[in-house]
């Protein structure tokens, strides 16, 4: 037998500081992050309506994020400060 080294990389181990699960969306403020693909705009509008009508969220706030990358630290802090939960992205 021969020995080789594993080329596969793993992520950092989780720090264990995840935020608590929100038990209900009723009365809560939910953020939606969108880069404004047309498809995301449609989904965001649909989700905002559902969050209010079905899940009785108190408010839904939409945040703009860049088309070419992650949200800015400023937007991230606003989401943390202003929301109880956030929808941060959808696949195509």
């Amino acid at each position, binding site marked *: 037998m021969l020995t080789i*080294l594993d080329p596969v990389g*793993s992520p950092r181990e989780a720090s264990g500081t995840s935020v608590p699960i929100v038990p209900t969306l009723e009365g809560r403020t939910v953020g939606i992050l969108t880069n404004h693909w047309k498809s995301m705009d449609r989904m965001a509008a649909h989700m905002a309506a559902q969050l209010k009508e079905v899940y009785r969220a108190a408010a839904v706030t939409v945040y703009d994020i860049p088309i070419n990358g992650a949200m800015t630290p400023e937007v991230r802090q606003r989401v943390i400060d202003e929301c109880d939960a956030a929808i941060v992205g959808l696949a*195509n």
Partner: protein
Amino acid sequence: MSQAGHRARVISVPEDIEEIFDFMYGRGMTDGLPVIPPTGERVERMMDAVSSPPEHVVAELPPRGGLATIEKLAINSVMAGCRPEYFPVVIAAVEAMTQPQFNLIGVQTTTNPVAPFLLLNGPVRRSLDVNCGAGALGPGRRANATIGRALRLILINIGGGVPGEGDKSILGSPGKYTFCLGELEEESPWEPFHVEHGFAPDESTVTVISSQGTQSCAASFLQPVSILMMLSDAMRAYGANSYTKGNGNPVVILPPAHARLFAGAGWNKRRIKAWLFEHTMIPRSEMPAEPRLLDTTSRQRIENGKVCICAKADDIVVIVAGGSELNHAGFLASFGNDLAIRRIGD
């Protein structure tokens, strides 16, 4: 990035070279082509080319967030067939790809066929025997082939860009195997690309540009505007993401004969870029009225009702490379993210 990562796991494999390839292929560790077995000795020789310790984390690569330690980068570079002296280029390319403006998570996970195009400048091109001339984007030269391939193996094995899984590219592209050339600085009448970006001529750099593939223009003309007319026609294709996003770096590759012809007629890179930017605008009225589901109209760069190929003329990259004949200028359409450039050996 200073936090130490873990050392690589040792795996026992059969000694037969074909069985090793079967083993690694079966575990999704390759690009589908045979690899050099990354034995401890080979990986040590690769790492000897740099001073950083094996555990040093160069970057975290999306979408998996895998830790790109010096050791993991060396393992994948061995597999790709790199010589140890190529390793600083691989590291600099990884550092470049993880600059925020390059948006590596988008490049890795998109349905687009985009791949990182690697442009090498400076003395490293000669010391590593990088092909800058005839067939520079084709097969045959070890540095071009294996540096680009190492990047792909790194993106698969560390980043998790596994086709159909983390990598959602609908078609993929040959550029996802390797996509690397050097600028033919010695035969260019203009300053090299890295000097345009503030580096000294005797510094070596690697630039990563998110490119969708290659388009050839059989521009066997003697007048600069004739060549530009053909190039701009190839570039005016609004299927490219740079039109959608109003951003990015379309790349024009001029063979040296074209470059000399332009320079002799008084054209510099800036004038070429300005001409191409203006003549690649597409009237919005020529596009379908229906907005695409993936449209980002609000982000498009529009001037007087015309959609632009990118944000501004100077974002078009013009470089010199290729064979000696006055024909076949090249164009690489942009995915719509901004390029990143790093000095090699920092």
